[in-house]
């Protein structure tokens, strides 16, 4: 635009060819995922590898459910970081707060899609959940708290937290000004406004933390309350879900933060943030590994026959490759994270590797939580079942990654993915 004299900060509004190529590619993959869903809708879930538990010897929950759990887990990061900044005054994390919040929102959107993918009657799902949802069902938490409450809260948080930046951008001429004005909604940055925002942010953080624990626990209860599935019925499920959510969420955040630091112009994410992320990930990871050991020990030491069967199947049977690959990815990540600390550098490479590895491990673990208890965990002697996802499920899952990435990179072009640096002095931005 002619009157644009100065580019918006952090590349907002500036589209490069590479960016367009990325957007196109990601959109294509996301659309491919939805094409998979359309096939599923028109022909039924027969196009998936899922089948009935029992005589059919299948798993009725598979990749879709693993990814519901995974995406909800990833959403952990944003709100946690935001809440920690407020509650624990971890100001070093401020530059990654926005991307963390955005990650939460897109991850929850992905989780919503994954849920829809998994419903036999998605349309009925939308209507009947609002109409009939029962508090007794562990799904109640998933549908109401996670998808509605959590997603809504995250949007509120993202929105309120971005108002100051929106107002700043709205002062600069660009094609996106209308959008920034809309977002700013009259924000002028008066001390009263800032004070109010600090107060709301604090109280929101307070309100969100229990929601966060409840939401992730709720998802754990979906599995942990089921006596009929060996390997599921465990009090550890809920806390383990919270932990693994933290692991995958922080891992994903690290990856995004590094990408932002490398690609977004002028984006300065301090090393301290990465140090903190690395350490936090390490702590959560170690805690999660501890949980894993406790779980395995309980199951092989005192588990009922079928519990032991499922555990044996995990450790040595059909699922051993996935299990040990997951364990290995966690273990290697632990090593990398410790190495980073020992070396005293920032170790972005190590961090990204660990971030990717823990996410792969988390996906593997989610899959292992969902599937073996169905195929190898029937309490009546149906025999061993099997489950192999089909292309539909794979394309749907991949599509969701593309969808999330698409939203994030588009978001980064309409709004600063890193908060404008105006503290402690105001008006310094760009």
């Amino acid at each position: 635009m002619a009157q644009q004299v100065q580019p918006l900060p952090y590349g907002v509004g500036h589209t490069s060819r590479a960016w367009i190529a990325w957007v196109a590619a990601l959109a294509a993959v996301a659309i491919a995922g939805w094409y998979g869903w359309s096939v599923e809708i028109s022909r039924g879930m027969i196009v998936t590898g899922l089948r009935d538990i029992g005589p059919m010897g299948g798993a009725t929950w598979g990749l879709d459910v693993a990814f519901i759990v995974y995406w909800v887990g990833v959403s952990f990061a944003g709100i946690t970081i935001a809440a920690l900044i407020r509650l624990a005054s971890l100001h070093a994390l401020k530059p990654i707060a926005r991307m963390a919040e955005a990650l939460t929102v897109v991850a929850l959107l992905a989780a919503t899609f994954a849920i829809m993918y998994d419903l036999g009657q998605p349309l009925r799902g939308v209507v009947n959940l609002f109409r009939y949802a029962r508090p007794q069902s562990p799904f109640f938490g998933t549908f109401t708290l996670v998808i509605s409450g959590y997603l809504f809260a995250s949007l509120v948080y993202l929105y309120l937290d971005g108002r100051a930046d929106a107002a700043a951008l709205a002062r600069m001429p660009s094609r996106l000004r209308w959008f920034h004005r809309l977002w700013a909604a009259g924000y002028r940055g008066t001390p009263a406004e800032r004070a109010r925002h600090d107060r709301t942010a604090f109280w929101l953080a307070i309100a969100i933390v229990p929601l966060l624990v409840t939401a992730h626990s709720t998802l754990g209860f979906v599995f942990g309350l089921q006596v009929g599935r060996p390997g599921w019925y465990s009090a550890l499920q809920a806390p383990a879900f919270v932990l693994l959510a933290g692991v995958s969420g922080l891992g994903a955040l690290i990856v995004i933060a590094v990408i932002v630091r490398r690609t977004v112009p002028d984006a300065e994410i301090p090393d301290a943030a990465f140090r903190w992320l690395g350490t936090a990930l390490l702590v959560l990871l170690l805690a999660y590994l501890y949980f894993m050991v406790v779980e395995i020990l309980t199951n092989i030491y005192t588990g009922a026959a079928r519990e032991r069967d499922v555990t044996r199947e995990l450790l040595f049977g059909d699922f051993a490759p996935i299990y040990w690959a997951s364990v290995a990815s966690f273990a290697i990540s632990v090593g990398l994270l410790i190495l980073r600390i020992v070396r005293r550098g920032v170790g972005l490479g190590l961090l990204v590797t660990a971030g990717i590895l823990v996410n792969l491990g988390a996906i593997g673990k989610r899959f292992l939580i969902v599937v073996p208890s169905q195929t190898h965990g029937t309490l009546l002697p149906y025999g061993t079942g099997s489950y192999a996802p089909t292309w539909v499920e794979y394309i749907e899952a991949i599509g969701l990654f593309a969808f999330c990435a698409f939203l994030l990179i588009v978001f980064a072009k309409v709004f600063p993915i890193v908060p404008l640096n105006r503290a402690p002095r105001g008006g310094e931005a760009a």
Partner: protein
Amino acid sequence: MARYGMVIDLDRCTGCRGCMVSCKIENNTPQGSYWMYVFRFEEGEYPATKVRFMPRPCQHCDNAPCVKVCPVGARYKREDGLVATDWQRCIGCRYCEVACPYGVNTFNWGHPEEHYYFDWNAEDVAPEVRGTIPAWDNPSLDEPYGPEQRHIAGGGHLKGVVDKCTFCVQRVEEGLDPACVQNCPVRALIFGDLDDPESEPAKILERRPSFRLLEEAGTEPRVHYVGGAPPTSETRQIEPAKAEV
């Protein structure tokens, strides 16, 4: 009010699977979907081989895990003891299926009408049967049943909806036995009001030792087994029915 239940006499069951077929015909279940399933078990090693049979309908648990987990109340417990599935409410999340320790739920993975056992609309069948409903379409199944007047008679068979044994609610409400019970050639299946001490199943339970499947799961099934014993970890299923879609 009558509270129904079933007694299965394992000392009489010959594993013929007639109940499975009569269930399929009565309820028009598509291929691969068995509301009633008859296990054939083998135990021990040659020559001390044991072979035995165990029919497995839905257990219609009093503390049904499937009822507890259903997010929309499509799966519910009726006062007469039946665990019903409202196929007009089910959203197809299949939580009931993973929650059930007995593996009794079946999901309509594809279009059920493409998976019936013969094609009513086949080019040269159609002229012959025109003007009549398909043999596999039981009109009793499409009606709402019970005081609650919900669609629970298994006529759903809709793509993306969960089905299971209904104890043939459409027959029970007319005072008939479920199709499997009526058809059992050796009277191994006995159905009736377990609360009525004069009913046939109640009398059998009074007289003979019985067990319920996975009692330890606390599901309180309304299906009781007499004769024989529950399967153990040494029990192998043989001759599984083909369940493919």
